[in-house]
């Protein structure tokens, strides 16, 4: 009995933290998403409705019939595409960088890890504004290319998905590099020597030994980039402009200007469900892989 009380007592702080910071807000969101929308924003307590979820897929036409509306699905697809692209690009840049870092002398490695984390010192908003200065027509890049005679017209990158992708890759690169670096640094160097010894050249040692052993880092980095990338709204808002709306911006809009809390909450829940499904699929595959054949 006393042991039981002790166990509960010791678990309480963790449970309280998870409860207050995760379960309560999510529960609140779940409830809000099933409530009716107030006439001037907010919600009407006690008046339940599934309108928000209906609105995600359908719209009411003039005859008040439900018709399929793919606008929001398209925004989701675009966001997933952008997050996937960002993940792929950060992987392509991050893996070689982390590989190079992990094979430096130990003293230099510490310095390099430090350098990778430097961008975190500045606010994300400020860094995005800096990218505007770089990317906009007449900005640093445009001006340099023009002066060098490499282009004759403004580059017109700003407010395109390309600008968003550049901004996202830049913002999320450290989240990709660090976990990969950690898993690469842990690899026993003798395993690589053993691969060389058995006749593997550099390329095959990389693909047959280094890459599989770094896989936990690659997967961790991919999750750390893909999941927040899916919900990112500052970078798409600032660099991508209003033309190509992303899920993050859409949700933020519902709670802000649109004053449609139930719909905003419903969107957030659909996004959450997608992310959880993706993670579960990965966890299942991972568990199957770890099991002895």
């Amino acid at each position: 009995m006393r042991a039981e009380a002790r166990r509960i007592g010791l678990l309480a702080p963790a449970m309280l933290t998870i409860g207050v910071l995760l379960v309560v807000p999510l529960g609140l969101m779940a409830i809000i998403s099933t409530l009716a929308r107030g006439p001037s924003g907010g919600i009407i307590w006690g008046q339940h409705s599934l309108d928000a979820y209906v609105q995600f897929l359908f719209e009411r036409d003039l005859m008040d019939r439900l018709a399929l509306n793919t606008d929001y699905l398209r925004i989701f697809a675009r966001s997933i595409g952008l997050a996937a692209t960002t993940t792929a690009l950060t992987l392509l840049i991050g893996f070689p960088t982390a590989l190079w870092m992990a094979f430096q002398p130990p003293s230099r490695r510490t310095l390099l890890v430090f350098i990778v984390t430097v961008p975190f010192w500045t606010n994300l908003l400020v860094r995005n504004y800096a990218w505007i200065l770089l990317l906009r027509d007449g900005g640093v890049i445009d001006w340099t290319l023009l002066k060098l005679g490499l282009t004759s017209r403004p580059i017109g990158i700003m407010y395109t998905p390309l600008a968003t992708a550049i901004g996202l890759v830049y913002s999320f690169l450290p989240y990709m590099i660090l976990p990969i670096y950690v898993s690469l640094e842990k690899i026993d160097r003798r395993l690589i020597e053993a691969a060389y010894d058995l006749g593997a050249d550099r390329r095959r040692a990389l693909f047959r030994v280094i890459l599989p052993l770094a896989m936990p880092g690659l997967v961790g980095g991919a999750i750390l980039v893909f999941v927040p990338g899916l919900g990112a709204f500052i970078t798409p808002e600032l660099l991508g402009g209003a033309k190509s709306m992303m899920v993050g911006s859409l949700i933020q809009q519902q709670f802000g200007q649109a004053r449609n809390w139930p719909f905003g909450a419903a969107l957030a829940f659909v996004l959450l469900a997608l992310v959880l499904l993706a993670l579960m699929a990965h966890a299942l595959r991972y568990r199957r892989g770890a099991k002895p054949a």
Partner: protein
Amino acid sequence: MSVELPRTMRASAAEARRPAEPPTPGRAGGEAARASRGAAAEVAVDCRGLVKSFAGGAVRALDGVSVAIKANEFFTLLGPSGCGKTTLLRLIAGFETQDAGSVAVYGQLLDGLPPFRRPVNTVFQSYAVFPHLTVEENIAFGLEMQRRSRREIDARVAEMLALVKLEGMEKRKPAQLSGGQQQRVALARALATAPRVLLLDEPLSALDLKLRTDMQLELKRLQAEVGITFVFVTHDQHEALTMSDRIAVMNRGKILQIGTPEEIYERPAARFVADFIGETNLLPATRIGERRFRLASGEELETAEPGAAGEALTLAIRPERASLAPPGDPGLAGIVEQIVYEGTDTTYHVLIAGGLRLRLREQNREGSRPRVGTGERVAVALPAAAIRVLAE
């Protein structure tokens, strides 16, 4: 350390090497096997004038090492940690590049070749078995790198599994294996591609004593079965004596002596060798004749051979080669200080003139009892043939 043990083990190792031959009792079998082996004098690994420094020249790991390792021989590099034995192995494997000198394997100069283009494979001290691959995938790795056909790989993997007695473990991951099993996977993996030379970097040092003894015999058996040259690195003199056809004793980046276990043990060429291999009594002495020497105490000793040149020398004699005699007999007079019963043997610590202490070892036989007690006067008989004359 018992002296009888290595002899019996060496004999049984020789039997293991020649399974077809009827077991020959005693040491003769070992000698015969070794002699016939020595007849094939083709050089497998030829190292010439190897020099290697680390830390920008501050540490000289190898200081002009030359050694010719014969084909199909079990060759051991023996020495204390930091003597350069592992560096020498890594130079042969290609993991390090020498500052000077050359390495050739079966006449092919390897200088400048990366490890994956060298006809040698390595068994690492920490096994370095690939943790993400199963036992059979580990063993198949080298074969796949050589782009052998699937059928050939499967056949060879099965053969290797049988050789190292790991049948039934094909699908296991290294984490599910014991240290000894991992060691055998590492061995099978290195042997699968049939390298001309196998390099082994203290492969048994992480195993417990029982397992190590088993693996020593198993390694000898494997070497006999696959018939390739083994270059074995160890700091364990007992392991070296038990397993090797020839031993190179190293210290401070230099090879001090190369010889068969008998030569190394019975006829050490340097004071370090005598002291490092087994136990030995070292007596400072001055030469007064071609084969006569005077100790610090004034007593004189005769040896069977003139030994090293020079005036100030060291006389070395193994504890089991000296014997106790009644006081007044020829030999060095002394007092028994301590008698230590060690199971197979009894060791006597005898204080002789000049404050030196000698160790004598006698094998315990049934019914035999110490003939003397502590504090008694004795003479220590040192047969002339058993005394080695070494340079100071």
